[in-house]
Each structure stands twice: as structure tokens, then as C-alpha cells.
């Protein structure tokens, strides 16, 4: 199975998890930072994807 969205989501989740646990010490802060980072990855990638749509290489 080749799902670009699935691999991107997995990557974003794992990187966000490591960053959140590495950079924050309190569980609530870790959760907040992790969710924000994950959302940033996903929304950023989707926004870039849409921006590139009208300009194919």
C-alpha cells in the first residue's frame, strides 16, 4: 500500500512526539506542544501541496 498521506501523517506524528517529550517536561505542556507541532506539520504540508498544485513541474 502506498499512501502518501499515511506516511506523511506517521512521520509528523513521530517527529512531533519526540520533539514534545524532548523539549517539554510537564505532561500538559508536552501534549499541547505535540498537538501544535503535529498540526503545524500537517497543515503546512497540505498548504504547500495546494500552493504547488497550479504550478506543476
Amino acid at each position: 500500500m502506498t499512501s502518501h498521506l499515511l506516511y506523511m501523517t506517521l512521520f509528523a506524528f513521530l517527529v512531533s512526539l519526540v520533539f514534545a517529550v524532548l523539549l517539554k517536561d510537564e505532561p500538559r505542556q508536552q501534549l499541547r506542544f505535540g498537538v501544535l507541532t503535529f498540526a503545524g506539520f500537517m497543515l503546512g504540508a497540505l498548504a504547500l501541496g495546494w500552493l504547488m498544485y497550479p504550478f506543476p513541474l
Partner: protein
Amino acid sequence: MRAEATTRAPSTSVVLVGLAAWLVPGGGHLWMGRRFKGLVFLGALVLMFALGLSLQGRLFPFEFAQPLVGLAAFANLAAGLPYFVAWAAGLGDGQVIAATYEYGNAFLIAAGLLNTLVVLDACDIAAGRK
């Protein structure tokens, strides 16, 4: 006083913790009793490395004629023990024609680079800076 502090060699325990943290992702944190962080790093980084291999990613050779390949090799090596296990098992040939090849490389390289940050964090904790 300041000059003495900045030129002082790292203590043995910091070096040992750094080595443990590099070899086993999260191992430095586990050693220092930070069990939750250590287990999360161990699980997430080993999973990322394994996913990279299963997605046909490549363990890059140390070829410095192509600088990016050489840098990617260092990033792979930074993953620690999983790198040596995969290398000994003959994994990580990389299938360039596979649709998931670049995803595999992204997972493998990111696992190594994230482990580098984890090693530095473990060294900071061992040195009493955190």
C-alpha cells in the same frame, strides 16, 4: 575561573551517558532514571528506523565525492545500534525505483538526527545543566 570551566574536559560519566544514549536511543535517559522519556525515545526512534527500512530506504555509504551522500551516511550512523544491526543483517540497500524510497530515506535520516538531539539532551542532564 571562566577559562578553566570552558576548557575542562567532559567528565567520564557524561561521555558514558552520551555513548549509551547514542548506542541505544533513549538509553541515556533510562540510565538516569528518566524512564518515561527514555521509553518514548526508544519506541519512537527505533520505530522510525524500522519504518525507513521497510519503506525501501537506503543506508547511505560514506562517499564524500558526493557530499550529501556522506552527510546522509553520518545521519544514518547517528541512529546507533539499529544502524549496526541493519548493516549486519544486510538491510538498507534501498530500492530507488520503489515509490516509497524517498519516504524511507526521510524516516531513516530523521531517526538519526533526532537521536543526535536526544544524545545532546542526555549529556546536558548528566552534566547537570538541565
